[in-house]
């Protein structure tokens, strides 16, 4: 059993920006850490806080209860830029389990999936309908159903694409390193003929 074995429901924070790069998700000055713990405190540090460290009250993730909302909704190309895995570490440490966006940066999507963070890409009309619902009713609950590859709000639903192997790993709790270690015989055979 993992979080992904069956559908779950939660509220969302709407961050309706395109091209949110990983330098915004976690600025480089927080990358001197040698562990992956505690990075949620620095999530969107420069968008969340004034220069003097006081929170900006109008930033979506600073609204009361934001930390208990497991879904983040963003625009196109979320997580573009740097390959830093500190970005999904910061998001999951903050309490986010799924990101719904129009599209994702390739490296970010790969990193997210290795950390139990589900990237859900939905297209223009579906995204617009969902964002409008969240703007009008921010307390709306969304249901994430990975086995069915569905995102649902009430009677509305949409199907999202996900790599079948990534879906299998999330649902079954399989880690990729364990899977790769089982390929040792094939790797040895490859190395014997590889120049």
């Amino acid at each position, binding site marked *: 059993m993992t979080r992904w074995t069956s559908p779950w429901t939660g509220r969302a924070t709407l961050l309706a920006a395109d091209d949110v790069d990983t330098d915004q998700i976690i600025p480089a000055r927080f990358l001197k850490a040698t562990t992956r713990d505690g990075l949620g405190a620095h999530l969107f540090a420069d968008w969340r806080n004034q220069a003097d460290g006081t929170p900006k009250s109008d930033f979506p993730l600073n609204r009361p209860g934001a930390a208990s909302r497991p879904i983040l909704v963003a625009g196109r190309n979320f997580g573009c830029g740097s390959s830093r895995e500190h970005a999904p570490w910061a998001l999951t440490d903050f309490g986010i389990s799924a990101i719904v966006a129009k599209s994702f940066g390739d490296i970010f999507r790969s990193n997210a999936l290795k950390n139990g963070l589900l990237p859900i890409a939905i297209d223009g009309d579906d995204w617009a309908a969902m964002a409008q619902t969240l703007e009008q009713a921010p307390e709306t609950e969304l249901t994430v159903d990975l086995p069915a590859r569905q995102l649902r709000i009430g009677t509305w639903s949409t199907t999202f694409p996900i790599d079948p192997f990534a879906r299998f790993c999330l649902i079954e709790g399989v880690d*990729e390193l364990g899977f790769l270690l089982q390929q040792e015989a094939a790797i040895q055979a490859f190395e014997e003929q590889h120049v």
Partner: protein
Amino acid sequence: MPVDPTPNHPRTLVEKIWDRHIVVPERDDTPAVLYVDLHLIHEVTSPQAFAALAARGLRVRSPDRTIATADHSIPTLPGTHAGTLPIADSAARAQVDRLTTNCREYGIRLYGQGHGQQGIVHVIGPEQGFTQPGMTIVCGDSHTSTHGALGALAFGIGTSEVSHVLATQCLLQRKPRFMEVRIEGALPPGIAAKDVILAVIAQVGVAGGAGHVFEYRGRAVEALTVDQRLTLCNMSIEAGARAGLVAPDDTTFEYLSGRAEAPKGAAWDTALARWRTLPSDDGARWDRSVTIDAARLAPMITYGTTPAMAMPIDWAIPEPDQLPNHADRQAVSQALRYMALQPGRPLIGHPVDVVFVGSCTNSRIDDLRDAARLVRGRSVANGVRMLVVPGSQEVKRAAEAEGLHHTFIGAGAEWREPGCSMCIAMNGDMLEPGQYAVSTSNRNFEGRQGRGSRTFLASPATAAAAAVTGRVTDPRTLLEGRFS
């Protein structure tokens, strides 16, 4: 089992490299197991990967295929690399120490501070001859695309994947799509590879290359030096493509011949014969194709907060309400607010506080020569700070052998030790909030060069022109008679 290495359909360069590195073929329900020839690591994205290995009692499978350097968080102040000054920032020092300990523990070659060949990871790989045509190369760094300039399939990975490669020398990957980026014709004098790639990104968009690998082709690409091709491939990720390649040719082979880690003697001849089979076959299928006319290119500069918000330097700053698409109007408005720029006004003449020449994009000897050509006989303008940060100790020595450091220092610039420096602003080299920089680096994101920093990305020549005038300046106006 390895697949048939010579399928009979015409293949792209990337497809040929891909096919030669398949350990287990891709299926619908599982990605391919792809073999990695060369794994580059640095201090920022590797500590958690080594910790993951230690937690499972695993060893590094192929230390001989792993190369380490310290570049991101180290100081670049003169003297800091000779071991005479400790790293002042305790977190950065701990991170660099951790890399040193991990490399010693697992038998990995480390080109760290104090090493005669230390440098930025994407500078030393090609320079030392580690990077070779036909290889698969990965690093926990998105600018790993740089190494594609020598005809290698090179891409950035996350720290979990760093642990996968350390433990198994393999990655789970889906085959990418192929995109041809043709740069036709000849570049006008004074137009650099940086201008070409900024024009490509402006045309393709920051997400246009997602899911694709670029191959840069055409006469203008063939005419570039390897240093220039490295600049071109470096910024592929800024158009969303994980990798960008140039087919290996005689320029590539001349560059590699005699480098420390390049094959020698009979091994060179064998390698050369294999490398010559790599270029894309006639009739190879591209999923997408874009073409740029080199002859029409001008010096490029960014005005906004993504590398795609770039324009010819003599254009006016865009007016958001005249853009056709709502999302672009919003994004450009917000970017111009952050940059405190007026829509419709020229960017030329805008005051500049700092000029940074460096980074894995533009810190090689060709880049330093381009900047020096403009600075020679002039001075850095009053009130402007210019940092010149060579990409490696070898680049630094080569520049000093030509006297370029005298040109920079004599003009009032700072001549630094190698490192990532002000590109990522992790090491104390940074802008003050609100300051403007013309920077030869690769990202103009909000806060990238320090909180509140405002970045104009441009070529080394355009950066140097801003340093000596104190304003955004078309380098062509200062270059009369200075083309080599």
